[in-house]
């Protein structure tokens, strides 16, 4: 195997494994904020119980995210040295900003958040949680910004100062607000919130099937199902569609590969299920006539650029991109169906709690949302090929020339083994947390004793001993 392929396999492997975790923590963060707000508003101890349970899951997911995330940051330098020199001025500064503004916030408050169930009153705990979630969201924002620059670069000038061509920053504003940044950020955040809410839905449905923690499980579903369903609908109709329009405008060659469009045409059809053959340049399957043109340009007569306008050596791997993309959109539409049916069953005579088949579907939802986010990410990254920076730098020119094929082969094998073990242990521990269930009901008097203002927290005095309440 060539060095390029091995470098790509390693990066794809490690980033795909990493990408299991951040969407879960972003989404769970949203749910934890809802629980925290409810705890402050209502003083009902059940919200604290729910928060304690899900914070435990959050801690596990977060630790996995950090451990696998450091690998990403190091790998730009280790495996993609040419790329690192080329984009250091721009991409590097966005990563560094992520570190200073996002990771530090997350890492700093994580300890408080994880200990909050036993150490902090409702308001301070909510504050700590909000800081961690804000950190995670900033983190996603900077990373999406960096990725968007690779997809739709601008605000740079190319120069060779004696160390090969490098992209220098000419406008920070343009670097931050590349055309694809906004659509990509919203598309990814909404997807992440769907992953988090589906994790909660899935665990709650499992409890209902087993008839355990029934009260808490119904509360979990009441909170997350409406959020999940609304997000699913918005994702298909607004955020996903925006992203597709953006790709059609700025990266038409990528859209052509996603939909298997070989001939530039108006009234282009959209394939729902199908297969594509780049050798014969045909795409077959169940197609809706003119739908792609309609989606791209809000008119059936919009011209969609085909791969015939793109030199053959600039094509992505069309069948792979086509299939992962269709996996994602079909999953997206399935989520609207799942959320919709579950909501109807819930509203209609409150039957959701007895519909065992529906609960089983909900249990499976976390797997489906994970598949959808992963295949979405693959669409974005594989669709960008053969470019590492769109139409500026080829992936085949970007890897570290000084790293031997044998070394990369060895580390690919190392990560494959390591990640298999880590995933196994992660699932094992997640299963244990879920089977153990939420902790016992906390005593309201005990919660009252926890510090709930800065002064109380830093004096380590309980309310009782400081005399108030």
């Amino acid at each position, binding site marked *: 195997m060539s060095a390029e392929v091995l470098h790509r396999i390693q990066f794809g492997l490690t980033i795909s494994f990493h990408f299991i975790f951040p969407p879960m923590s972003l989404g769970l963060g949203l749910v934890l904020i809802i629980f925290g707000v409810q705890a402050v508003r209502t003083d009902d101890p059940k919200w604290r119980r729910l928060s304690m349970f899900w914070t435990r899951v959050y801690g596990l997911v977060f*630790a*996995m995210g*950090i*451990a*696998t995330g*450091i*690998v990403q*940051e*190091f790998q*730009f*330098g*280790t495996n993609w*040295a040419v790329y*690192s*020199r080329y984009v*250091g*001025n*721009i991409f*590097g*500064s*966005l*990563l*560094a*900003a992520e*570190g*200073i*503004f996002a*990771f*530090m*916030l*997350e*890492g*700093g*408050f*994580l*300890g*408080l958040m994880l*200990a909050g*169930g*036993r150490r902090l009153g409702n308001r301070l705990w909510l504050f700590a949680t909000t800081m961690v979630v804000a950190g995670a969201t900033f983190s996603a924002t900077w990373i999406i910004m960096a990725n968007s620059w690779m997809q739709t670069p601008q605000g740079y000038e190319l120069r060779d100062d004696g*160390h*090969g061509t*490098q992209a*220098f*920053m*000419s406008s*920070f504003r343009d670097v931050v607000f590349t055309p694809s940044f906004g659509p990509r950020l919203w598309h990814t955040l909404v997807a992440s919130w769907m992953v988090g809410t589906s994790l909660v839905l899935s665990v709650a449905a499992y409890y209902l099937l087993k008839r355990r923690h029934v009260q808490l499980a119904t509360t979990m579903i009441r909170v997350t199902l409406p959020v999940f369903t609304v997000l699913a609908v918005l994702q298909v109709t607004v955020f996903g569609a925006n992203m597709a329009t953006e790709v059609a405008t700025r990266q038409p060659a990528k859209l052509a590969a996603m939909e298997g469009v070989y001939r530039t045409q108006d009234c282009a059809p959209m394939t729902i299920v199908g297969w594509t053959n780049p050798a014969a340049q045909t795409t077959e399957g169940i197609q809706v006539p003119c739908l792609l043109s309609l989606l791209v340009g809000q008119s059936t007569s919009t011209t969609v650029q085909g791969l015939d306008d793109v030199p053959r050596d600039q094509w992505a791997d069309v069948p792979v991109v086509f299939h992962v993309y269709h996996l994602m959109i079909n999953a997206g539409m399935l989520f609207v169906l799942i959320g919709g049916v579950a909501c109807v069953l819930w509203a209609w005579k409150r039957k959701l709690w007895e519909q065992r088949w529906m609960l089983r579907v909900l249990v499976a939802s976390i797997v489906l949302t994970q598949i959808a986010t992963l295949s979405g990410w693959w669409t974005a990254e594989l669709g960008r090929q053969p470019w590492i920076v769109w139409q500026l730098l080829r992936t085949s020119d970007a890897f*570290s*020339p*000084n*790293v*031997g094929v044998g*070394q990369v082969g*060895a580390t690919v094998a*190392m990560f494959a083994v*390591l990640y298999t073990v*880590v995933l196994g242990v992660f699932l094992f*521990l997640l299963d244990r947390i879920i089977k153990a269930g939420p902790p016992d009901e906390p005593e309201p008097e005990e919660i009252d004793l926890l510090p709930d203002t800065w002064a109380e*927290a*830093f004096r380590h005095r309980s309310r009782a001993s400081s005399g108030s309440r």
Partner: protein
Amino acid sequence: MWLQTVWFVLYVAVIAGYVILDGFDLGVGMLSVFVARDDREQRTLLNSIGPVWDGNEVWLVVAGGALFAAFPLVYAALFSGFYLAMMLVLLVLILRTIAIEFRSKREGRRWRRTWDWFFFASSSGITLLLGVALGNVIRGVALDAGGNMDVSLVDLLNPYSLALGVTAVAMLSLHGGIYLTLKVDGDLLRRVERLVPKLMVVFFVLMTGMVAWTAGLDDEVAGRFRDRAWTLAFPTLALASALGAWRLIRATRYLAAFGASAMMIGLLMATVAAGLYPVMLPSSIDVANDLTIHNASSAEPTLMVMFVFALIGLPFVLLYTAGVYYFFRGRVVLDDGSY
């Protein structure tokens, strides 16, 4: 350009921040198998770093990001040139995270003992590897005119760098030991208190040897100190901090001793930096191939934007880091939610 020097200083500061902060939790890991006698004591050790180790590790991420942004050529050369060593660092970082997170999630002696050894081995491994990497940077690496190098793992493990790695292990064990005197009590505390002075002596002997070795090894480094005599203040103050730490340990004033230890580490990093400046990655092939702050940095617009970011971000980081440490001050009390 003044920004290049500013970023060199900031970069050294972030590295020093990492070594001081993650240093003590790595030290706790390295001491764990020697001081903990039973499960309860091992848990006490884990919980002494429990709320903060994740945040400490973030400093390494920031250091990586800052190097990428401010000195991309150094980042590319160093990380790809030390490929297998870097991959080993990543491996032990992941194993350490898993060891800390997974140990207490299950009862069972064998399960817990296994992860205890992983915790010990990975903490030692990270310290040793990063020490060895620093040793190679000080010695110089086979950097070609294109800014590339390919240093095999065997070449990295030269006597000087290995000795520096061992010294780093001693230094962070000491730092972690002093931290533990603030966090544990009972028999465990007494054991740690007996160990700390011994660690101090071992570290002091090793460090003295390293200073002599470095001065004899490298004319360039020694020359830079001669040319900029004021930078001798760093090693002098580091020595003063070390002696101060010794007196404070004897007087059992551990909080102040921890401060002195942290100051000493910071000053030692500053000493290394002063010995290298303006070079960041010396080439052993040809001085002309050296990567310096002048030929390896990003251009002014990037450095300026990043400088503004640092000015805005770092005060907040220091503020809430201090706040979190203050909140979790005092000795460890185990409860059912602990590690």
